[in-house]
């Protein structure tokens, strides 16, 4: 294989290769063999140990060791346990889980059954957002096929093990992806998180021990049994084994779904796999971890991507969104954009997240309008830190990341906004000024005739003037002037 191939398809091994609506093609691609082998050749404890040894960590964001989680649920005594697949995928722009369910639904079904065997559950639930109709369709088809083949239901592989799966639909609230909120929502309650402990593994769905894993986490499970824990652990880094699927988006040439071994650097992802920045612009920042991840910069480009490195750099793995920004992006606006999302998506249960994020947003808004002060920057930092320190669930505990990381990495940009009332990227509308460059103006009146608020004055063949107090920064004059006589700053 040539040197520049950076991707390995593990979780996506069948996506784009097999027909997702054919169980035969899945079986031809080693499907259900892992389940068969686990059920006939391994005890639940041995199978769980295999997952522990593989070093697999949860792909839903937290990065908790999957095997350890299974082991906790396995050890809790209970008459009934549940396996839940988290397919809520609420990060804007992320579609890793959707792609897996659309391209290879059987891998998730197989993994859930293995999980059920390991922890002693005979019932699985997939919590999927209702906005994923195709994924739901394919999952349903796959469930029917698996039942028809006897790979779900009673006495699977003649071993006496029973397992079946139901689908539950999410209403599309981001916070419902948080596992305790997800369980509340499945129980018919308001989808809001509750504090942990108790963890779902102790008391989850209907108060019973419940193991919740992400779609991509599950998709990795069958491979681990087919190829061995050692094989899996040989991919990636020591503490983060295997691969990670990312949805590459933003100002990058090859937008799309990629899967790279843990430890690949951001540079490799962006410039080699992603084909670099669009239109030859300059790279500015990359945001990982979904709406509450951090914005990393040039200096992080050679950091190998894994759970711990990303956290250390002030961002996080999240579920795998990766958005690339170029020189035209204003980091204050970027932070404000993400805060806007969290303010909308907070469940409103705890004070710091409900009110605090709103105040963070308002402070950013003031700053981006050029009305901020240095004092506001101090407030921004203190508030962000308190929200992280005091919020109830992962949403609030991470929502200030976009603000704090941009303050850390792009401090000058914040200063420019508050001290000079200037937006270096020219994005903050309120800070833009359109001015007539007097040397170039020939007095053609094109700008004045096109100004929607009539704020440009000047006689024909004389130099024109823009009344700044009335200007709405629509940019019409800039576009219409054929003499380069309007400047933007």
């Amino acid at each position, binding site marked *: 294989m040539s040197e520049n191939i950076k991707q390995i398809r593990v979780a996506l091994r069948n996506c784009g290769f097999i027909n997702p609506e054919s169980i035969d093609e899945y079986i031809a691609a080693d499907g259900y063999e892992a389940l068969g082998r686990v059920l006939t050749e391994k005890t639940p404890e041995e199978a769980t140990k295999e997952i522990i040894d593989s070093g697999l960590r949860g792909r839903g964001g937290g990065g908790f060791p999957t095997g350890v989680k299974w082991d906790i649920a396995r050890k809790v005594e209970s008459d009934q346990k549940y396996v839940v697949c988290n397919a809520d995928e609420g990060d804007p722009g992320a579609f890793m889980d959707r792609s897996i369910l659309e391209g290879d639904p059987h891998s998730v079904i197989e993994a859930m059954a293995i999980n059920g065997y390991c922890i002693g559950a005979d019932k699985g639930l997939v919590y999927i957002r209702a906005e994923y109709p195709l994924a739901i369709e394919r999952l349903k088809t796959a469930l029917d096929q698996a039942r028809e083949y006897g790979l779900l239901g009673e006495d699977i592989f003649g071993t006496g093990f029973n397992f079946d799966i139901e689908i539950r639909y999410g209403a599309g609230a981001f916070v419902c992806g948080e596992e305790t909120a997800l369980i509340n929502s499945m129980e018919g309650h308001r989808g809001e998180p509750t504090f942990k402990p108790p963890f779902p593994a102790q008391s989850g769905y209907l108060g019973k021990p419940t193991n919740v894993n992400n779609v991509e986490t599950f998709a990795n499970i069958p491979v681990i049994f087919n190829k061995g824990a050692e094989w899996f652990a040989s991919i990636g880094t020591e503490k983060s084994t295997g691969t990670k699927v990312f949805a590459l988006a933003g100002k990058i040439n090859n937008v799309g779904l990629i899967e790279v071994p843990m430890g690949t650097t951001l540079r490799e992802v962006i410039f080699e796999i992603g084909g670099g920045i669009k239109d030859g612009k300059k790279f500015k920042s990359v945001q990982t971890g979904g709406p509450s991840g951090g914005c990393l910069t040039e200096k992080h480009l050679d950091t190998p991507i894994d759970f711990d490195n990303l956290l250390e750099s002030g961002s996080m793995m999240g579920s795998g969104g990766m958005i690339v920004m170029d020189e035209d992006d204003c980091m204050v606006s970027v932070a404000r954009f993400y805060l806007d999302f969290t303010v909308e998506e907070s469940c409103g249960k705890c004070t710091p997240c409900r009110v605090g*994020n709103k*105040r963070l947003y308002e402070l950013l808004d003031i700053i981006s309008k050029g009305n901020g002060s240095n004092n506001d920057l101090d407030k921004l930092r203190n508030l962000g830190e308190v929200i992280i320190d005091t919020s109830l669930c992962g949403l609030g505990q991470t929502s200030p990341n976009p603000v704090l990381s941009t303050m850390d990495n792009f401090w000058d940009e914040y200063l420019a906004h508050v001290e000079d009332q200037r937006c270096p990227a020219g994005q903050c509308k309120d800070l833009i000024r359109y001015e007539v460059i007097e040397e170039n103006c020939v007095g053609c009146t094109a700008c004045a005739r096109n100004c929607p608020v009539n704020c440009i004055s000047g006689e024909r063949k004389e130099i024109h003037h823009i009344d700044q107090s009335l200007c709405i920064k629509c940019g019409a004059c800039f576009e219409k002037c054929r003499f380069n006589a309007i400047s933007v700053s």
Partner: protein
Amino acid sequence: MEKIKVKIDNRLVEVEKGTTILEAARKLDVNIPTLCYMNLGDMDIEHRPGGCRICVVEVEGRRNLAPSCATDCHDGMEVKTHSIRVLNARRTVMELMLSDHPFECLTCAKSGKCDLQSMAIKLGIRDIHYQGEKSTYKPDFSPAILRDMDKCIMCRRCEKMCNEVQTVGVLSGIYRGFEAVVAPAFERDLDHSECTYCGQCVAVCPTAALTEVDHTNQVLRALADPAKTVVVQTAPAVRAALGEEFGMEPGTLVTGKMVAALRQLEFDYVFDTDFAADLTIMEEGAEILGRLGKFLAGDKDVKLPVLTSCCPGWVSFFEYHFPDQRDIPSTARSPQQMFGAVAKTWFAEKIKKDRKDMVVVSIMPCVAKKYECTREEFATGGNPDVDYSLSTRELANLIKRANIDFNKLPDEDFDGPMGESTGAGVIFGTTGGVIEAATRSAYEIYTKKPLDKVDFKQLRGMEGIREATVDFNGFPLKIGIAHGLGNARKLLENIRAGKSEFHAIEIMACPGGCIGGGGQPLHHGNSEILKARQKAIYREDSGKPIRKSHENPSIIKLYEEYLGEPLGEKAHQLLHTRYFDRGREIVIEADVKEEQ
């Protein structure tokens, strides 16, 4: 139980495994502030949503701060409750809460009793560094409760009471993020929901987001009107709690001072709802014995158990949630309404007044009574039997506004004839009291033997559901008691399923009965206060010369002069009522809303 050691603010304490940091700290007299947390231990009501984040503390080795109300101690844990990190976080969280709160303390109904206000004082908030948009909601005026959600801090205590304790299920968190608020579904008004007006949400709301509708001005206006004869009745539970509003110990009985205060307020007649409670026993007792007699005689059309009906919160509850069972409760009106009906007929005739020139005011521990006054069946020609119902808290305000030094008042007696009552009437104020009062009279009437011991201790207590069997001359009368609507629901579901073995059941909507009513001085989550009030009620009972309702001379006279027989025609007209199927009402209204 396994013991563990924890260090809080450098002091060691040994606690049982499963103790929260908050509880462990209290053992050391370290009072970590809380807002959303609420614990009514005796009633098995614990609320710890972990939402306000005021109670956060620093735990050695933990990444973020821990909510002490919801975090269990572990062995060797080291906790700091006032490090600079904690103090800064706590202050910031408090400022955030205040930044989304109207600054109306000077004119607020809750001022002086508001947990949010006290917290701001405790934390020494002098400045709010984070300011911005405030969330606003449409105010909701119902006949009994005012919802001003601009003042809601999302502690969710009301939700706990309404959904889990009362199982009414009207209030729940709706909307997301900054707009999140507690409200009936679709942000409907309470008046268009299944709300029973039990007032338990009001009783626990730390702020003025939920308050009772204030009727003190209407009462003042009536008192000032020379053309009106203003009669006041005071419910039994009021005397056991009113003192708290004037700084007295919980459980102080202030019957005499209360009467004196009402007289100074210039009510024309100061009467006692206890009188009407005795009347209720006459009617309800007769009904129990009548139905029981028929049942024992083998009449298949008679349904048992008989359920008490003196609590309007409970009445609404079964009208909404168990309309199919509405033929089981006694048809006796509540004491408040019996009083009003008798005052505006028998007593009106006595003093030669037209009912239109009379104003009947009730002082109640209750929010539902405000609503009950507005029910159409309790009016004659548009003139209500009871004009205004004030809560215990409103009476305290009225007394303060009239410049009366309550603590220094002499003890005075109620006026006759409707001020005369027995110990049986008094115990209506607590859970178990109504059925004990009924038992005292029913026993003597049924067995025709005098009761040598009037105290039925087996009916007393605070457990949510209690049962006892009383020997009625060889017949074992099975009695059930439930307080709190969630407990009532359990008994009712049993009845619906045909599994109930009781002959008579007492139900009160409020945990503890009326002593824990929604109109009482706020207990701020301290259930010791309720227990003290209960003791006071039984003290008042045992101090009364007459302790059985049917021996009340004024009641005897009322029947002789006016009503005739219990359950007789006149009694039926004035003292009984009927119930409606409200289950359907809500569905229909919801449909209409959707069509609009």
